[in-house]
């Protein structure tokens, strides 16, 4: 089986869907000749033309709103928001418009829209270009949120997102773009809303996603515990079935995410685990997350802000030393 990078997997998914369906097109800042800030759409203009790979002004609110309207009008837009931090500029169009139309119109309007965006720190981009803002999104009813951790998942989930008739926020992690993994040459799709058990274990369940999957695998290797690792892959809909099954088996949970601790994905999952698995828990639910501060630029401070493999190792050792 061939190995490709995360960014190549995303590029393949986009290429295949652009070729398959003439209603699919892309729009975003600098996605044209420049090829996108991270190079995802490199060469797309030559292949698909300026009409389908639309360079736009720096108008993020209009980008998301216009894409939603275009979807209502029968197209299937994929909009690129360069940094996840910029999603805040689109919040009204996303929250009060795009995601409201289908439900409020009682199903009359359909908004098949994919919003791709690059998230996460570790590259020294500082407080406004490094954030993990997915906790802001999970409280918006009607959004699907996908956040793949491997090239294989990235390709299969992006293709499924493009064919979905809902609004899908597809989050790409900057530090994962260059990572490699096995991706089959033949076509496949992966279901949105299904988590994946990466490794089986009996002592503790690690629930994580995106970049912290690999950190979790490495930390688990360093401990002498039998660690089960669940990769969420989708944050909405959240696969509580897979989470609960694992927690009921191990009775101990560590939730790991890149964003801030307070009000994070871990807070939501911890609540749901308490509601669903209270009688099975043997140890307080642990959360590993970023410190509740803006992400500094300086490498030492940035590193100290974001969660590390060591933090996961320490969380595991608390369980071990009990």
């Amino acid at each position: 089986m061939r190995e490709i990078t995360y960014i190549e997997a995303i590029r393949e998914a986009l290429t295949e869907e652009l070729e398959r369906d003439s209603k699919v097109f892309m729009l975003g800042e600098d996605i044209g000749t420049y090829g996108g800030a991270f190079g995802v759409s490199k060469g797309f203009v030559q292949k698909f033309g300026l009409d389908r790979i639309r360079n736009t002004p720096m108008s993020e609110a209009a980008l998301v709103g216009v894409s939603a309207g275009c979807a209502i009008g029968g197209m299937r837009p994929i909009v690129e928001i360069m940094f996840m931090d910029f999603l805040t500029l689109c919040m009204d169009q996303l929250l009060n418009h795009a995601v409201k139309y289908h439900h409020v119109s009682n199903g009359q309007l359909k908004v098949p829209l994919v919003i791709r965006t690059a998230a996460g720190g570790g590259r020294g981009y500082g407080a406004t270009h490094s954030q993990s803002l997915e906790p802001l999104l999970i409280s918006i009813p009607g959004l699907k949120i996908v956040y793949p951790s491997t090239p294989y998942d990235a390709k299969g989930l992006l293709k499924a997102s493009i064919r979905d008739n809902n609004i899908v926020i597809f989050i790409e992690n900057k530090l994962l773009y260059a990572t490699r993994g096995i991706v089959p040459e033949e076509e496949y799709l992966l279901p949105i809303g299904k988590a994946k058990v990466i490794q089986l274990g009996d002592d503790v369940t690690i629930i994580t996603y995106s970049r912290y999957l690999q950190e979790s695998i490495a930390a688990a290797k360093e401990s002498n515990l039998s660690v089960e690792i669940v990769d969420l892959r989708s944050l909405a809909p959240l696969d509580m079935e897979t989470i609960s099954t694992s927690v009921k088996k191990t009775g101990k949970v560590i939730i790991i995410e890149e964003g801030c601790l307070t009000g994070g994905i871990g807070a939501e999952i911890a609540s749901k685990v308490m509601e669903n698995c209270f009688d099975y828990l043997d140890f307080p639910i642990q959360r590993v997350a970023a410190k509740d501060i803006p992400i500094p630029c300086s490498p030492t401070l940035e590193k100290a802000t974001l969660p590390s493999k060591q933090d996961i190792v320490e969380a595991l050792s608390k369980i071990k030393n009990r």
Partner: protein
Amino acid sequence: MALPLEEALELYRRMLRIRFFEKKMDFLFTHGQVHGTCHFSIGQEASAVGACAAIQEDDVVMSTHRGHGHALARGLPLNNLMAELMGRVDGFCSGRGGTQHVMSWKHHFIANGITGGTAVTGTGIALAFALKKEPRVVLSFSGDGAINEGHYHETLNLAAVWKLPIIFLCENNLYAMSTHTKESMVLQDISKRVESYGMKSITIDGNDIEMVKETVSSAVQNARTGLGPVFIECKTYRFSGHSKNDLFLYRTREEEAQWLKKDPIEKYEKIIKERYGESNETFKRIHQEVEQELDAAAIFAQNSPFPPEASLLDHCWCSEGGLP
């Protein structure tokens, strides 16, 4: 060239229908029949009716929080509109929308409650028409408040850059809720601000229904033939309050009296009488007919059931399409 009499009377009837509809809703609201609020457009009937008379059935109308008039001008049936506003199952959205979110895709009509927001959606629909090479246009209503929203400017610029088939119709009634345009912008002609985006941009008397219709017709021609968007500012005045809680503390009785003299409906009645020699009888008959259809609509809406609780979670997700 003057309109044929029948057409002029039809425009008059549509304006009157909006005014009586709003008054009926006000009455029903006061009697506890409407859950929520209502933003009436009494005084602004000419811009709604004139503009909608200039577009085709498969064109799209984007509307606002003050959208009852736009909906009626677009031809949405009275019965279902009233049912929607009263939260009933026969409303276009089965009551999920209410006064500020009337959506009927069958009539290519979408309203939403955020100032200037639907112009962005409308620009996207216009982009879909352009990409699919369909000769359809979008007529996007907004108020003067929208011109101070960032997303509205982003979308004006984008529509101009991409030469999209959309007409931005701004009903400048001088007040964004209670704030006069003199408090919120230096230039009092909003069209002057929009001109800078490089699109055709004009200000007209929004209470002159024939002028509105004519101006929008020519803008539609512009947009439909690929020449890009047009911005039309209709100067008008809202005789009613902003919403149901308005005590009119921010404007004078003198100013209101000045504008009442420019009532678009009375003005047009006078024109029809002078131009075609129509008698009072004709107008009396139209008034009676419109009142009757509104009485019937109110009965229809009141008899329509509330949506069942069991339907609450319908359409949370769009289940069509997606994975095979």
